[in-house]
C-alpha cells in the first residue's frame, strides 16, 4: 500500500473519532441535560456526528475491501508469473 493511502486511512480514522466526539459532546460538555428535550445544538451535533461516523466507517470498510482485492490480484499475478518462469 502506498504511504499516501496509509496516512489517508489514519485521517479517515480521525474523522471517525471526531464523529464519536460530536455524538457524545452535548452530554460531556453538559449543554444538554439528560431527560430534557433536545436543544437545537444537540440535534445538530448528533446528526452531524452520526453522519460523520457513518461516512468514515463506510470509507474505512470499502477502502480496506478494495485494498485487499488489489493485494489478492497482485498475489495471483505474481504466482502466475512464477509458474510461467518455472
Amino acid at each position, binding site marked *: 500500500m*502506498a504511504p*499516501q*493511502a496509509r*496516512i*489517508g*486511512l489514519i*485521517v*479517515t480514522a*480521525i*474523522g471517525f473519532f*471526531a464523529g464519536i*466526539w*460530536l455524538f457524545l*459532546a*452535548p452530554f460531556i*460538555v*453538559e*449543554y444538554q441535560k439528560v431527560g430534557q428535550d433536545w*436543544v*437545537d*445544538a*444537540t440535534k*445538530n*451535533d448528533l446528526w*452531524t456526528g452520526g*453522519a*460523520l461516523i457513518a*461516512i*468514515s466507517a*463506510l*470509507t474505512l470498510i*470499502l*477502502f480496506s475491501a*478494495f*485494498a485487499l482485492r*488489489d493485494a489478492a490480484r497482485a498475489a495471483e499475478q505474481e504466482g502466475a508469473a512464477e509458474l510461467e518462469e518455472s
Partner: protein
Amino acid sequence: MAKYVIGATGALLGALAGVWLMLAPFALAYQGSGANWADPTYVDFWTGLPLLVVSAAGLILYVSGLVEELRHRGIMRRPYTAPAGQPQAPGPPQGNASASENNMEQILLPLVTAMLKDMQERDRERDGARGGTVADVRQTPNAGEEGSVRR
C-alpha cells in the same frame, strides 16, 4: 484505483461536514451574532475546523495516491518529462520568441544543408550529362558516317 476514489470521496464529505460544523451555530441561530460564544458554539467550531483541515489533507493524500496509481498504470504521464530516446537540443531556454526561433534554426540547419548538397550534386550530374550529349553530337560529323545507321 477504486479505493483511492472511495477514500477521496469520504475525505471530501468529511471536509464538508467540517465546514457545516463551523457554520451551523450561526445558520441554526443557537449562537446570536455579537454575543459571547456559548459552549455548543465552541464545541462545533473547534471540532469543525480541525476536521476540515484534516479532511482536506486526507483528500490531497488520496488524490495523490490516485495520480500515482494512474501514472504507474501508464494512464497518466509525468509532466515536464521528455519522452525516452529524444534528447533535447542544447540551446537557450525556450522562454521567449527569439529563443524558440534560434532553436528552430538549429533544428532546420542540417536539413537545409543536406538539401543544398543534394541539389548541387544533381546539377553536376545534369551538367555532366549535357556535356556528354554535346560531345556525341560533335563527334558524329567528324566520324564521316553520314547516312549510315550508328549502332
